[in-house]
């Protein structure tokens, strides 16, 4: 993407999306163990977005959202984020405190709990990614925030290497059954990462 006019082949995008699907499946299992309920995931959507439009793409720039973000280093760098609407994040934490029969958490404790959960989900996503591809994915410390979705996404894009005017990403939507909890896991590979992973999977480079 960074290189002008460069496009991925349909096969590359499909293969990468399929890998993300497997990873999201693992993350969903982890979440379902945490909340003790079924978690459904959507078919992943792969998109190439012009930079100015990226912040608008996940529920609107001004939507209040809670995000846990991990920058991934290693041979296949990229960025990954768990993004929930603020109400969904709140329901998730309430669900957990109910389950654990704990008193109500302070805002700080809630944020920290959310960061932990996010870290676990993204961790299992990356773990699966490592197993499928044989590459090592080294996540940095998860960072957490609650704010406008556009401000969160805009900030994490600053970490992408080699990505200039267009951004490739794969998003998977999930929903916790019987609860009003929905959210996204969004993967933003750096330049070169998609090629490396799909090559490892045997997809020919055009």
């Amino acid at each position, binding site marked *: 993407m960074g290189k002008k006019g460069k496009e991925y082949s349909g096969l590359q995008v499909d293969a990468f999306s399929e890998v993300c699907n497997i990873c999201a499946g693992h993350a969903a299992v982890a979440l379902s163990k945490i909340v003790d309920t079924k978690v459904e995931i959507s078919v992943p959507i792969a998109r190439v977005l012009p930079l100015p439009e990226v*912040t608008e793409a996940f529920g609107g720039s001004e939507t209040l959202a809670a995000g846990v973000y991990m920058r991934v280093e290693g041979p296949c760098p990229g960025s990954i984020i768990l993004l929930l609407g603020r109400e969904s994040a709140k329901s998730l934490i309430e669900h957990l405190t109910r389950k654990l029969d704990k008193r109500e958490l302070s805002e700080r404790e809630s944020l920290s709990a959310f960061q932990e959960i996010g870290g676990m989900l993204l961790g299992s996503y990356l773990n699966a990614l490592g197993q499928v591809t044989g590459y090592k994915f080294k996540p940095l410390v998860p960072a957490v*925030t609650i*704010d406008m979705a556009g401000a969160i996404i805009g900030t994490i894009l*600053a970490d992408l290497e080699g990505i200039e005017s267009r951004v490739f990403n794969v998003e998977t939507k999930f929903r916790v059954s019987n609860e009003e909890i929905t959210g996204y896991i969004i993967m933003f590979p750096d330049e070169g990462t998609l090629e490396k992973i799909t090559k490892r999977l045997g997809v020919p480079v055009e």
Partner: protein
Amino acid sequence: MSETIRVGLAEVKVSGNSSVLTCIGLGSCVAVIMHDPVAKIGGIAHVMLPGRAPEKRADMPGKYAYTAVELLLEEMEKSGASRERISCKIVGGSNMFKIQAGPSGEVPKGYPRSVSIGERNVAAVESSLREAGLKISAEHTGGNFGRSVFFYVETGKVEVTSITVGKVVI
């Protein structure tokens, strides 16, 4: 009727009287706002990164502080603004992620660079405006919260909204 023009990531837009230029959801990004009150011309650059656009990637000059300021100034002058009359305001540059800073306020190891990119963006924008000989008349920067900007070109009024501090006019 006023026309609302959205300035997305890395975009630079200039417009005339009666328009409202906006950036919705600025995190670590910085909105550089220029205004010529006489010609009633205004513009915003939505800066994402400090530094300047590498030459081989000159297709996104607005992404980087120095090249964005140069481009915005050029576009302002092209539209009839006069450099002597231009006043600047800057908004944004927050450090969005809540992290435990080290004893002297530094970012501990193991965090991505985006956790402190907001303040570096602000510093780069300030220095590029200084280099261009332009003065900053007002700013609303830093903190750890996102902002939206509404810039009324006719009056030069800039409204900053955020979840944390509500609406502020600068």
